[in-house]
């Protein structure tokens, strides 16, 4: 007599399913994941893992963590990163050292694959969570990540 037990099990599993969706329905007012974007522009915070654009954080002394090793440039699959560097004399040690002049990032070409950030040995670059990246001219999408006059954090390579 599996006929009636089939019916019983079917009804039971259907009711279980309906109770699950019913709970979602009742909680939808509070738990809705929809963001009403232009209205909540001031309070909207993107998720930590959201990939907006690559940025280079600077500390209060205008020092960044990029040593100019070019690993990110090599890791980038479509050449979105270009690093202009030269050898300068380090004022503290007096030795010649590789230093970045400009860390150029083409946001227009970037596919947000995150390979550069994984490749960086000193965590100099990371993802920002901003998403309002539209501009009127394509040239604005090419960005210099290190701020003018910034230096590498001393003692980073030791």
């Amino acid at each position: 007599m599996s006929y009636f037990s089939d019916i019983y099990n079917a009804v039971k599993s259907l009711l279980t399913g309906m109770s699950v969706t019913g709970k979602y329905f009742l909680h939808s007012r509070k738990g809705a994941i929809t963001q009403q974007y232009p209205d909540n522009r001031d309070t909207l915070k993107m998720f930590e893992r959201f990939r907006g654009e690559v940025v280079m954080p600077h500390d209060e002394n205008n020092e960044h963590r990029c040593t100019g090793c070019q690993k990110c440039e090599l890791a980038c699959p479509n050449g979105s990163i270009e690093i202009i560097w030269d050898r300068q004399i380090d004022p503290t040690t007096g030795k010649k050292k590789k230093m970045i002049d400009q860390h150029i990032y083409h946001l227009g070409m970037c596919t947000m694959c995150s390979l550069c950030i994984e490749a960086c040995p000193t965590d100099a670059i990371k993802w920002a969570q901003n998403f309002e990246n539209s501009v009127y001219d394509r040239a604005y999408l090419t960005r210099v990540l290190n701020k003018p006059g910034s230096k590498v954090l001393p003692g980073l390579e030791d």
Partner: protein
Amino acid sequence: MNITKNIHEWLFSLMPEAAASIVEMVLIAVVYLIIFAVAGLYLVLLERRVAAWFQLRLGPNRVGYQGLLQTMADALKLVSKELTVTIKADKFLYNLAPYFVIVTALMALSLFPFSEEFQAFDINIGIFFLTSISSIGVIGILLAGWSSNNKFSLIGAMRSGVQTISYELSVGLSLLTMVVMTGSLQLSQIVEVQKSGWLIVQGHIPAIIAFCIYMIAGTAETNRAPFDLVEAESELGAGFHTEYSGMKFAYFFLAEFINMFIIAAIATTVFFGAYLSPFGITESIPLLGVFWFLAKTLVLIFLMMWFRWTFPRLRIDQLLVLEWKYLLPLNLMNLVLMALMVLLGLTIKF
């Protein structure tokens, strides 16, 4: 109602009898058309909001307060769109099909007792008329699929034929189970019987089984998920209305929602006492009957939406197994049980 009586007398004093009755019919038709359009549009909105809440979204809430004008805007857009026809379509049938679907839906609407006096057409074979009218609608779907000259449309239409012919049996038999208790097919009579307890209470166990079967078969009848094989977006594009655009598409779309309303309204009338208030709390105010009728219908419509956003779609063979191996035998057993119960006087009456 007093207003209708006054209008009736005024019309008959104004012109000869034949002309007056025609004018009256036209007026009633216009009233029902308005109900039809408003109900259709707002059911679409309700479906969208309810679907959104089930999926933890917000749904359309921008056009008007809480999105109340959203479907109006959609309808305006559809009216202004071009009506396209494929070259190989059978033009006459292609243009005829949407009207079949929408006219049958409208005809069924006229039978419901919205309140004691608000019923346009109280025919003595009410339930029979309703079930037969609702199965004429499938001819429209078949014609649409056939005349579009499109493989997807044809498959969708044929599935619709299979589905409606199968589930029509369950709808008919589950309603017949209740008719055993009322002893009449006339809707006003059925409501009269329920003044001593709603039929789902009067008939207890067999009535509840009949209600479950009716809801399952009714959902299949309206081609809604989990029985939406007719449209099956992931397999057939849009099924039978793939080739339709603009207002003709809107006719199919509206008719689908009106059919859902009709299925829920039949269930309200037959199982839940139509316009009668629970425990007779507002018996003294007959106008509130409309409110109770719509409230009960909306609860049942919500139940159907709940089905739609919970259950996955059935395969075509599973659909037929469900009907022919489970619903139909259960229904026949249930009918015998109900007949025995009525014979032995085991129904509950207050």
